[in-house]
């Protein structure tokens, strides 16, 4: 199996609205796959289905070759899937540092008895997690906000922090839902750099939903274009740009991003 994620004829309806219509594509192992398409194309819904939040009406998802039907979100995380949200879901009344420190898997201190009776072991583990969290904040330029409550961050900072959460584990595959939304232009360049670095450092694959075509062009191969719940086109950015149907879909949706690109 070469695909880290295979989306196989996924269909999802809400009432009479068909949001995903036998949608199929693959995220090649080790790739940074871009997922683009006009608003309402069904991209976020698809992410939620892959991550176990939403149940599909038909079709299967294969994660690293295995069918993950019926798996819950926390089980999928244990299987190596990490994600961010289009609308940030930060833990508002916790510090930025804590928001990262929650993430690592199988922390001994998450057991009540260990928290009471194995404090030495928990402390040592905490120190290691803390170091990783601080290094992550350093990379993201958020160190100055480490003690701030996450709810007080700006939209762009929350997006960065959410990326940081995915960096706290060595995930097999990371789903990023519009990581660049609300992030200013200079930070956007940094963001691309972070993702490139993560991609080089670990053997992590990415699937990125994004409206910023420069970011997609810089990072992603392949790029998958969705419209009305189906895959419209798929390939390198240059091929996608030349595709008449893609242009039509974007122009139809009056999205300036692609029309200009």
């Amino acid at each position: 199996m070469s695909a880290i994620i295979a989306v196989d004829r996924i269909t999802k309806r809400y009432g009479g609205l068909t949001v995903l219509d036998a949608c199929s594509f693959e995220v090649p192992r080790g790739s940074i796959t871009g997922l683009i398409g006009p608003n309402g194309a069904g991209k976020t819904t698809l992410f939620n289905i892959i991550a176990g939040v939403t149940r599909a009406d038909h079709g299967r998802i294969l994660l690293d070759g295995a069918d993950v039907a019926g798996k819950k979100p926390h089980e999928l995380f244990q299987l190596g899937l990490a994600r961010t949200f289009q609308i940030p879901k930060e833990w508002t009344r916790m510090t930025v540092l804590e928001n990262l420190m929650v993430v690592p898997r199988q922390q001994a201190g998450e057991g009540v008895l260990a928290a009471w009776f194995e404090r030495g072991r928990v402390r040592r583990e905490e120190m290691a997690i803390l170091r990783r969290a601080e290094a992550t904040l350093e990379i993201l330029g958020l160190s100055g906000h480490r003690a701030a409550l996450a709810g007080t961050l700006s939209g762009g900072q929350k997006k960065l922090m959410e990326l940081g959460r995915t960096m706290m584990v060595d995930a097999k595959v990371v789903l990023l839902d519009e990581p660049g939304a609300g992030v200013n232009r200079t930070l956007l360049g940094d963001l691309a750099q972070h993702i490139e670095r993560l991609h080089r450092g670990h053997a992590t694959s990415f699937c990125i939903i994004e409206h910023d075509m420069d970011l997609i062009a810089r990072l992603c191969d392949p790029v998958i274009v969705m419209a009305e719940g189906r895959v419209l086109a798929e390939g390198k950015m240059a091929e996608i740009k030349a595709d008449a149907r893609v242009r039509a879909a974007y122009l139809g949706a009056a999205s300036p991003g692609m029309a200009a690109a």
Partner: protein
Amino acid sequence: MNALVGYGEYAVSLLTIGGIYAVMALGLNLQWGYGGLFNAGVSGFFAVGAYASAILTAPVTPGHFVGFGLPIIVGIVSAMLLSAVVGWFVGRICLRLQSDYLAMATIGIAEILRLVIDNEIWLTNGSRGIVAIPRPFEDLPGIWRDFAYLGLVAAVVAALYIALELLARSPWGRVMRAIRDNEAAAAAFGKDVASFRLQAFVLGSMAMGLSGALTAHAFKFIGPDATLPLITTFLVWVMLIAGGSANNRGAILGPILIWTLWSATELLTGTLPPEWQIRGSYLRVFLIGLLLQVVLQRFPRGLLPERPPRPPQAERVDAKEG
């Protein structure tokens, strides 16, 4: 001199009951403050603990089912265990509900338990309640007896505070607060939300059961009136919110302060003309509600608001220096 002893006794009794409420509020704080679980049936868990310990420790009386004459410590431990079991069952059924539905479900369960207590006379002696519940330190003279019981309650509060504070600062507590702040994100990052919630709910229920047992032994009597939602559920919520939820110190300060004021309102309504006395209890609720409003105007997150624990590094530096 006599007056002084009188005030002393009054203060001891205020602190004892305030302390028992603190046990209850610490349990609720674990559920609501750290876990975001809206338990509106505190009185039910209180009742389970109070009756369990009362039935097990009351003297054996011929021709009467009530009373097993077991040692007090057995009663108290059993009260906690039984509350945990009830909490587990209630949690398994109700915790998957949304917050407002959880509130309704727990109110319902507490009311069912109250009806059971009222009607299962063979077990609970119905509206007459259970009398002659043993009290520890009975052999001590005069006010020392009350002092010793206050000491016991204080020790329980201290032990519970330390246990819960260790939890709150641990990765376990961090996960609980994450679930409280955003459940979907906690699940997305691998946390088994249902399991953590159930743990918090059961542990909190145990504390509530413990407070029930401590009440039964303090008064040597327990009757259905003690399980009315007004003086358990309602008051303990006011105490926690006023003291500061997600802050274990707030969950101790709030009960002592509010219980003192609640008792003061009794003195106040005691001075009302007789035809008003009957409305006194409603007036007290009104006054406490008003007080909560005033506190929240000035301290929106309670007198001692939540403060995230310091990262572990600070402690390490302290340890090195020390």
